[in-house]
C-alpha cells in the first residue's frame, strides 16, 4: 500500500466508523497526531481507544481530499473533514453542532503501513470564543479558576453559585472518561447543611422520609426531604463523618435555612450551619488509583456509601464512596476552602497518568442510569411518592417526619402520578424547560430529563406522568423541534455494569 492508497483507506474507514480498520492501517508503533489532541497517540491500543472516542463522537462523517502530493517517504494532503457531533442537543435555532474543518496532513509510510499521520487544522472554530460572562450576583466555587483553565463554556446557577456544566469537548469524550477513565468535577456548589449535637441523627430523621435512625459514623445514605405537604425539597446524600455530626450534601434547595427555621425555638439539641466545605467529585473506574495516590492511607476498603476522614494532598477531608456518575467514584469534602486550588491541582497531577478529564455532570451517563437531581423535584409540585426513589419513603417508620401525614394521605387516596423512562423518537434538543407529554387527548405528564444515550444510541428521557400510563404505552412529546412519539419504559435504562 502506498501513501495515497493508505490515506484513501484511512478516510473511508472514518466514514464507515471502522476503528479496527483505521488501526490496522498503522504500524504497531504507529503515531497519530492532530491539532485538537492533547498528546501524540502511539501504538495500536492507544490508537484504538482514541480513534474510537472520536468515531463515537461524530456521525454523518464525510471527507474530501483535494490535493495529494507524493513526498520522499510518504505524501502530503489537503482536504476537508465534516461530521455532526452526537449528543450535543443542537444549537438554540435547532441547527446541528458540527465538527467541520479543513486540514493539511502528512503521512510517512513504512513497509506499506502508516508510521506517522499528522493532521494540522484550526480547532478554534469548534469552540466558543469566550466563556459565558457573569454578573456579581452569585458566588463562585473556590475551584473557579480551575474550571476556567479547563475551558468550561457553560455555567448554570445552583445553590446561588456558578455551576460549571459543559466544557469544550464532544459529549462522548466526557462520557468515555467517566465510564473508562477518571474525571474531576467541581461540585463546590453542592453545599453541606451541618447538623451538630446530641440530637443530630434524630433531627435528621425528622427531616427525612427515609428511616435514618441507624446512621453511624462512617455511613452515607441517600434520602428525600419533603415539606409539610409531602412535596420533595431535594434528595441529599447524607454523610456522618463523626459522632453527632451529620452533613446533608444537598442539591439546589436552601436546606440550611429550612433546617434552621425548624430548629429555632424548638427543643432539638442541635446546631444547624453551612460549613466552609466545597466538595469535588473524582469519578470513573480509575478514580481509585488517583485517590490512593492522594490520600495518606489506602482507601481500597472504603465501601459504597461509606465515608472516612483522611489527609488528601495534605488537607484534612472527608472522603465518601458516592457521586453522581451512576458508577464507581469518590467525593472529597475538604475541611475549609482556603487551599482549594492546591487540592484541585494535586488531583490533576495525580490523575495525569490516567488521563483525568475535568468535566461537568455527565448527564448522558447519569440519565442512562436513572440518576437525577433536584431539578427533578424542587418546587416542582412533585410529592415523594411520585418520584423514582419512592422506595425511600418510609411511612412505616416509628418516628414522625415532615410531610409524613400528607404522604400517608396521598397513599391512602392513591398516588396520581409516577416517574417513567421514555424512549424518544429522533433527536432531542437540550432540555431547557419541561416538555409537555400527552397520551390520548390532553396533557398527561411532562418530560423532566432528556438526553442522547450513547449506550442505546437513541434519545431517552424521564417523565412524570399520570399513574395509568403504563410501560409499553406510546405517548406524544412536544419539544422545540416538534412533536414526536415516545415509548414508556422502566428506569434505569441500562445496568451499572453494561
Amino acid at each position, binding site marked *: 500500500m502506498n501513501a495515497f492508497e493508505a490515506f484513501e483507506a484511512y478516510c473511508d474507514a472514518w466514514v464507515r466508523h471502522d476503528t479496527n480498520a483505521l488501526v490496522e492501517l498503522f504500524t504497531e508503533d504507529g503515531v497519530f497526531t492532530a*491539532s*485538537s489532541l492533547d498528546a501524540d497517540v502511539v501504538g495500536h491500543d492507544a490508537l484504538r481507544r482514541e480513534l474510537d472516542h472520536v468515531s463515537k463522537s461524530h456521525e454523518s462523517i464525510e471527507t474530501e481530499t483535494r*490535493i495529494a*502530493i*507524493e*513526498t*520522499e517517504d510518504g*505524501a*502530503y*494532503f*489537503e482536504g476537508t473533514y465534516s461530521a455532526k457531533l452526537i449528543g450535543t442537543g443542537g444549537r438554540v435555532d435547532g441547527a446541528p453542532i458540527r465538527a467541520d474543518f*479543513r*486540514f*493539511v496532513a*502528512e503521512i510517512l509510510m513504512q513497509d506499506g503501513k502508516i508510521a506517522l499521520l*499528522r493532521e*494540522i*487544522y*484550526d*480547532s*478554534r472554530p*469548534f*469552540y466558543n470564543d469566550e466563556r459565558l460572562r457573569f454578573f456579581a450576583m452569585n458566588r463562585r466555587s473556590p475551584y473557579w479558576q480551575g474550571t476556567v483553565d479547563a475551558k468550561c463554556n457553560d455555567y448554570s446557577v445552583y445553590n446561588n453559585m456558578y455551576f460549571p456544566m459543559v466544557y469544550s469537548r464532544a459529549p462522548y469524550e466526557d462520557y468515555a472518561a467517566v465510564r473508562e477513565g477518571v474525571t474531576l468535577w467541581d461540585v463546590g456548589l453542592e453545599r453541606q447543611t451541618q447538623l451538630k449535637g446530641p440530637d443530630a441523627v434524630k433531627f435528621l430523621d425528622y427531616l427525612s422520609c427515609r428511616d435514618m435512625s441507624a446512621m453511624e459514623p462512617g455511613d452515607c445514605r441517600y434520602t428525600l426531604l419533603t415539606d409539610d405537604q409531602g412535596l420533595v425539597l431535594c434528595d441529599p446524600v447524607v454523610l456522618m463523618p463523626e459522632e453527632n455530626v451529620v452533613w446533608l450534601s444537598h442539591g439546589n434547595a436552601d436546606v440550611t435555612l429550612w433546617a434552621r427555621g425548624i430548629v429555632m425555638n424548638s427543643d432539638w439539641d442541635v446546631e444547624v450551619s453551612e460549613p466552609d466545605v466545597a466538595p469535588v467529585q473524582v469519578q470513573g473506574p480509575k478514580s481509585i488509583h488517583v485517590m490512593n495516590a492522594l490520600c495518606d492511607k489506602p482507601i481500597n476498603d472504603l465501601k459504597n456509601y461509606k465515608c472516612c476522614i483522611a489527609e488528601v494532598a495534605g488537607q484534612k477531608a472527608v472522603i465518601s464512596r458516592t457521586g453522581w456518575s451512576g458508577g464507581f467514584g469518590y467525593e472529597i469534602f475538604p475541611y475549609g476552602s482556603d487551599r482549594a486550588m492546591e487540592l484541585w491541582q494535586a488531583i490533576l497531577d495525580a490523575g495525569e497518568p490516567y488521563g483525568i478529564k475535568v468535566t461537568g455532570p455527565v448527564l448522558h451517563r447519569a440519565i442512562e442510569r436513572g440518576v437525577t437531581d433536584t431539578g427533578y423535584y424542587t418546587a416542582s409540585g412533585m410529592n415523594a411518592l411520585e418520584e423514582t426513589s419512592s422506595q425511600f419513603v418510609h411511612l412505616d417508620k416509628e418516628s414522625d417526619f415532615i410531610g409524613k401525614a400528607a404522604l400517608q394521605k396521598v397513599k391512602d387516596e392513591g398516588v396520581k402520578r409516577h416517574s417513567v423512562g421514555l424512549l424518544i423518537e429522533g433527536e432531542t434538543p437540550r432540555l431547557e424547560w419541561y416538555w409537555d407529554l400527552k397520551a390520548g387527548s390532553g396533557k398527561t405528564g411532562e418530560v423532566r430529563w432528556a438526553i442522547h444515550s450513547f449506550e442505546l444510541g437513541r434519545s431517552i428521557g424521564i417523565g412524570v406522568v399520570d399513574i395509568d400510563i403504563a410501560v409499553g404505552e406510546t405517548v406524544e412529546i412536544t419539544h422545540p423541534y416538534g412533536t414526536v412519539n415516545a415509548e414508556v419504559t422502566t428506569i434505569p435504562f441500562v445496568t451499572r455494569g453494561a
Partner: protein
Amino acid sequence: MKMASNTAKTGAGRAIAAYIAAFQSLDSDALAASAGRNGLVEVPLIKPSRLFGHSEIRRGHSAAFQVIIKAEFVSDKAMAESDDAAIWLGTLNIQRNTSAPESHEIGIVAQPGDDGASRISLYFDSRGIRRWADETIL
C-alpha cells in the same frame, strides 16, 4: 533546518516561498504580491480570515504585523510540489509584542494562477491564542 526558499520548482512553490519571505520581513506589500491580483489568502486568527485580492491581503496582514516583532518559518522537510499545488509543513516561531515567544505547527498550501497564486492557505491551530489584531468591540 530547511527554510522555504527559492529552490521551489513550481509556481505554487515559489508563491509559498515568497509568502514566507514576506511574512518573515513583516512586509505586507511584498506579501500581497505573493498572491495573484484576485488571489485568496486564508490565515487563522486574522479577521476576516479569508482575504481576497491584494488590497484585503495587504490590509489584513498589516494589522497582524503591527503586533508581531519577529516571525520565522522553519522546516526540516522539503516542500511537496506538483503542477497543481504545493504544500509546505513546518513550524512558525513567532514573537509578538504582547506575549511570550510561541511555536506553532503550520502547513501552507498554494495553488497556482495566471498572475501569481490563486490561493494560499495557512493551517495551524489558533485555539487558545489571542488574536493578532483585536478589533473594536461594537
